[in-house]
């Protein structure tokens, strides 16, 4: 049997269910571990809109202050804005209180280093070691610093994006836009960005004190409200964010949710018009990116799944753009982080410069179908599952074992990988034909299930 625990402590941070595993004791200790690691400077703390944010933020504040760090309270703040602000203010680090696309009973801490990037594996290991050793820096009463409120992070971040895009070209088109902020952190920043870009916009689900109106993952089945609004208004484009506003999905007025893989593809298309530099995406991202990059004459690198892996590769190869196929656009010229706001801005600029509708642009791109499956699998079985998948399906494929196993053929690939955060195995297939993709995915899934049980 697989063991599903309500707590996951890993290099991605600490994640748990409030009322079960994510206790104030655990959060305080982790914040103290991070404060001990980061040093006695300012640490920025922001959260998404989950009701548990108050309890968790107080525990984070207590833990950080106990190590002599200064706490800068950003309140409700999108993750990319926290990251941007950490880098801009030369803070010692940041903590994002968000379980991202996970259901509302979850919450999590994600640790941000002084460059405004999530901690990579090595740095995260160091924080975990401090946590497990329990030897936190303790300061005396006189050395305890205070909490400072800072409400300008979203504006600073927005200014950075507006400097990068051609604001006037976008504003001239007076795009009709709808956006679904899922009552998440995007609600405090998205309207102001669309306003600044001269859009006529309708924002839905912008009440930060209300629970999520639907599961906060911006995938098609959760975007029915937005699809309805987009149709009614007849928008040029509609956007959906997740709870912490790092991921972005696109909805068309006539076609509904077009699939979050298009988000990165369209952003890559726009950025490569001006920057002739490599693209970095994760191993699970659509091969549409390769088609667009090869048309622009630049190389595509693939990194392990996880924002920091893509970010580090982008920085290493001096890449122009990249991200993750689940809707996470990264534009290093703004900052090397997944950023739904940067994504919205460059995709609106794409519409402005192409002079075509969203639907026409999509029709001009090669068509692929991505099929995603997942199934419970005990972690100790994952290795055997991967080896078996490679044996059974690997004939004639280019094999990449850097994140699970990825088997690539011409215009088709299969990836099977264990999740970093849950005891599940994910199966991805991309092929030009949906039926073909589904058949391969289901075959692979069946094989995984057989071995997982």
């Amino acid at each position, binding site marked *: 049997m697989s063991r599903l625990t309500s707590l996951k402590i890993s290099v991605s941070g600490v994640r748990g*269910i*409030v*009322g*079960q595993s994510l*206790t*104030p*004791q655990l*959060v*305080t*200790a982790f914040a*103290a571990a991070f404060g001990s690691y980061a040093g006695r400077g300012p640490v920025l703390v922001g959260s998404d809109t*989950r*009701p*548990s944010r*108050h*309890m*968790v933020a*107080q*525990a984070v*504040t*207590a*833990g950080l*202050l*106990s190590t002599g760090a200064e706490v800068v309270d950003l309140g409700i703040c999108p993750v990319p804005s926290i990251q941007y602000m950490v880098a801009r203010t030369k803070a010692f680090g940041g903590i994002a209180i968000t379980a991202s696309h996970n259901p*509302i*009973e979850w*919450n999590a801490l994600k640790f941000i280093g002084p460059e405004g990037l999530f901690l990579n594996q090595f740095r995260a290991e160091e924080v975990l070691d401090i946590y497990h050793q329990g030897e936190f820096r*303790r*300061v*005396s*009463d*006189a*050395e*305890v*610093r*205070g*909490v400072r409120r800072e409400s300008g992070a979203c504006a600073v971040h927005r200014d950075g994006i507006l400097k990068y895009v051609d604001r006037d070209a976008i504003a001239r088109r007076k795009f009709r836009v709808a956006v679904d902020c899922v009552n998440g952190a995007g609600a405090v920043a998205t309207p102001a960005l669309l306003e600044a870009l001269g859009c006529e916009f309708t924002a839905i689900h912008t009440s930060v004190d209300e*629970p999520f109106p639907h599961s906060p993952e911006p995938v098609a089945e959760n975007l029915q409200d937005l699809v309805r609004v987009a149709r009614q208004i007849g928008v040029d484009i509609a956007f959906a964010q997740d709870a912490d506003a790092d991921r972005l999905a696109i909805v068309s007025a006539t076609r509904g949710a077009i699939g979050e893989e298009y988000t990165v593809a369209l952003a890559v298309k726009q950025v490569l018009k001006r920057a002739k530099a490599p693209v970095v995406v994760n191993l699970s991202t659509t091969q549409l990116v390769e088609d667009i990059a090869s048309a622009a004459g630049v190389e595509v690198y693939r990194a392990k799944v996880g924002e920091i892996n893509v970010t580090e590769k982008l920085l290493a190869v001096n890449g122009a753009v990249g991200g993750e196929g689940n809707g996470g656009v990264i534009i290093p010229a703004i900052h090397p982080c997944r950023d739904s706001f940067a994504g919205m801005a460059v995709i609106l600029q794409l519409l402005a410069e192409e002079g075509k509708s969203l639907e026409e642009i999509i029709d001009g791109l090669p068509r692929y179908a991505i099929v995603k499956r997942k199934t419970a699998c005990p972690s100790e079985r994952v290795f055997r599952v991967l080896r078996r998948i490679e044996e059974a399906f690997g004939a004639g494929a280019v094999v990449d074992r850097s994140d699970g196993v990825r088997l690539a053929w011409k215009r088709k690939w299969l990836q099977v990988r264990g999740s970093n955060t849950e005891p599940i195995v994910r199966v991805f297939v991309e092929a030009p034909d949906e039926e073909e993709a589904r058949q391969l995915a289901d075959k692979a899934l069946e094989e995984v299930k057989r071995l997982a049980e």
Partner: protein
Amino acid sequence: MKQFKIGNSWIRGVVGNGLTAELVTDFACAYGTYVGGREVVLVRDTRASSPMFGAAALAGLLSTGCSVADAGVCPTPVAQYLVRRRRAGGGIAVTGSHNAAGWNALKFIDEDGALLNSIRGEEVLDLYHLGEYTKASWDRLGKREEATGFVGSYLAATAGTLNVESIRAAKLRVAVDTVNGTAGAVIREFLGFLGCEPILINEEMGPDFAHDPAPSARNMRQLESLLRHIEADVGFAVNTDVDRVGIVTEKGVALSEECTFPLVADHVFARGSAVAVTNLSTSMMIDRVAERRGGRIIRTKIGEGYVIFRAVNEDAVLAGEGSGGVALMPVSRAFDGFLTMALVLEAMAEGGHRISELAGRLPAFLMKKGEIPCSPDRVYHVLEEFRGFHRGGQVDLSDGVRAAWPGHWIHVRASNTEPILRVIVEGEDPERVERVFADTLFRVNTVVHGKS
């Protein structure tokens, strides 16, 4: 060595070396579990670490499903009033109170506004040791509400029950040293309410205390000097969370903090009931005042929790300690510095007395206090050895060893904060007090060093 102590109604320690954010979170969870999801009032003092411990307490309370009325920087007796007014389940005050800089503490307030009594305090401690706290799910977490605008109703419900008209009519000039503590949030409104003219020093609230915050005579030099140079009717010194008051006369002479309680008692006993509860270390001035007024004094272990609990059970009109804490029981089950100051002002106003005259009515005794360093693992052994040394005296072993004779008494007990034994001798005859004190120190030292 780490400095951390658990009492029945408090925990306290040196910040970062004994008292940590994790410990405070745990105790807040234990208390929230004890309160069972009812509202908890939270206040803090002005120490640098108080926001940190306040955040830890808030996180712990919210996680157990208790909603929190956060009154911010606020005196403990005001929090004790708020618990009753809001019909909350309890309260937590984050305050180092009279303790020196570097220390901090939590005080736990029960639903009746008193600090937790020993029975209930032990129940919270059992929950802490058990470590099984209530864990509210995400949709049942407590909510934090900022509590504001309560000072007026607090004053009406406490000082307002006294003879306010006569205090106002006296138009007293009152100097107060608030030692940069929480009194700053209330003091102007308090003196205004009583029609007094305020002369305030160290009023600005913040972590840099102008001096050691215990309102004892040695910490009232500034106030003494002020009253020698300006015209004022009385000077008061309070500690950071305003549960203790020290008095300086209009002539600029600081009274011992032991005088506050008997001075107030002399005034209150004159009206009727003269039953009061105090602790074993408090000056026998209170006994003489009670004799004069035909009353009765009951003594308990040291600590507000013990004294108040006994006072509730004895239907006492007053409870107090030699450290300057006084509770007027029919009004509030709290050592309340504001109410204490108001009672002193009432005593002055009603009889038209100067504070020096009121102080002059108190019997003059000599009290000697000493400390003997003693490692914590030896303290109780030493007390055990020492208990048989008091032939002819009336011995009370409920908190260390106290022995009383008709004209003097000795008390030896373990400190709640430091690895020391405290020795107190008080009596009528100064020579005898000096002799007994020297003899007691010698004998305790002999036991401490194992040469019996």
